[in-house]
């Protein structure tokens, strides 16, 4: 059976962060001056990498480096969500790359100069794949806040990075999701670079309550909507 044809529209600027952000100097040095050029979408742009073909999936529990290793320091969290397209159709088999700071706000990365401790029991990296209903879930440790040292003032609120390989090059997607109720959310340059409250809320986890028993964790949820409508047969 041939794959369905998907209709992709350019991202609506009102649903996205501003390209230029005051007090974020690199946005003024890296954003092209020349208007972006409209192009037709051919087979090349309508196809794309399949993450499950490329990556080893896992771990699903980032709070431990191995099954028997001690748990990383910090608050255990369970993150869940669902990926659909604009019609609400699930994106099954989409690969997700996640990365985050440890509970002290430290990444394992050669560019991170923050003097917070590395946790030997935490890498902050994982790869997942959505199920037939587009759902995903994983355990982790709540990330800490950290300073952007070059700026002299900006502290990033706790957040988790998501990179999604959907069904084509057009829905190759990268974002950051924040935690509700964090005081630093009010001053973060990125979270506040959105035109309205509703868009801003799409960058924040919903608190899903707590679990108790075999697993004791705080639950958070964030659904993602990748662009694309299934084209109806009569339009083909």
């Amino acid at each position, binding site marked *: 059976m*041939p*794959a369905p044809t998907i209709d992709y529209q*350019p*991202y609506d600027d009102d*649903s*996205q*962060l501003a*390209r230029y*952000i005051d007090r*974020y100097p*690199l*946005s003024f*040095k*890296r*954003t*092209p*001056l*020349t208007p*972006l*050029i*409209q*192009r*037709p979408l*051919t*087979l*090349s*742009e*309508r*196809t*794309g*990498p*399949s993450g499950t*073909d*490329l990556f080893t999936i896992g771990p699903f529990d980032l709070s431990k480096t191995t099954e028997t290793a001690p748990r990383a320091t910090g608050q255990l969290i369970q993150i869940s969500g669902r990926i*659909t*397209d*604009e*019609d609400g159709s699930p994106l099954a088999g989409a690969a997700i790359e996640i*990365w985050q700071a440890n509970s002290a706000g430290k990444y*394992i*990365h*050669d*560019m991170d100069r923050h003097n917070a401790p590395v946790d030997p029991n935490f*890498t902050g*990296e994982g790869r997942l794949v959505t199920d037939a209903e587009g759902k995903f879930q994983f355990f982790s440790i709540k990330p800490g806040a950290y300073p952007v040292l070059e700026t002299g003032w900006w502290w990033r609120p706790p957040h988790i*990075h998501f*990179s999604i390989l959907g069904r*084509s*090059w057009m829905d*190759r*997607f*990268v*974002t*950051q999701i924040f935690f509700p109720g964090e005081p630093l959310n009010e001053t973060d340059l*990125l979270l506040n670079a959105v035109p309205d409250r*509703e868009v801003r809320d*799409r*960058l924040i986890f919903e608190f899903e309550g707590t679990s108790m028993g075999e697993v004791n964790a705080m639950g958070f949820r964030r659904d993602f*909507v*990748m662009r694309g409508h299934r084209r109806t047969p009569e339009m083909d």
Partner: protein
Amino acid sequence: MAVSPYCTIGPYFPASFVDGCEDLTHHRGLVAQGTHITLTGRILQEGGVPTRNTILEIWQADANGVFRHSLDPRCGEADPGFTGWGRARTDAEGWYKIQTVLPGSYEGRCPHANLMILAIGLTRRLVTTVFFADKPDDVRDPVLDCVTDTAARRRLFARRENSGEYRFDLILRGENETPFFLD
């Protein structure tokens, strides 16, 4: 349903998500068919300043012009040794390097590869297309033809160096800016 907001990749994309992805010429123990090439260049911001720690991703057809994707009617013929996808990170001088195969042409399109750039300072990805041809001015391609300025159009072609490497610089902003497409 409202589309999710993009956000910058930030400075801390894990090295383990890049390591090994710079080489597209092998997949699961198989060697990719066709001409193996090195695609290399610098990613520069305003004033020609190198961008360090920028993530570049590539998506292309195999040497026979087939995409490893169910939407390609020739998907069944796709090279099992080639996925078509790769990723690299720029060094302190802004250099990236990708090992791949020369993409094949197919009906309607000249040999090309899709590129996307993710970096701090960019709240959304930047997308463009690199083309491969001996005589750029003779090429007709529906995506390339959207770039009407002749000088800008030429900037979308990789240049074959004497070393055999293909050189393609990406200038994000300013003089000799690379054409980027609406995304």
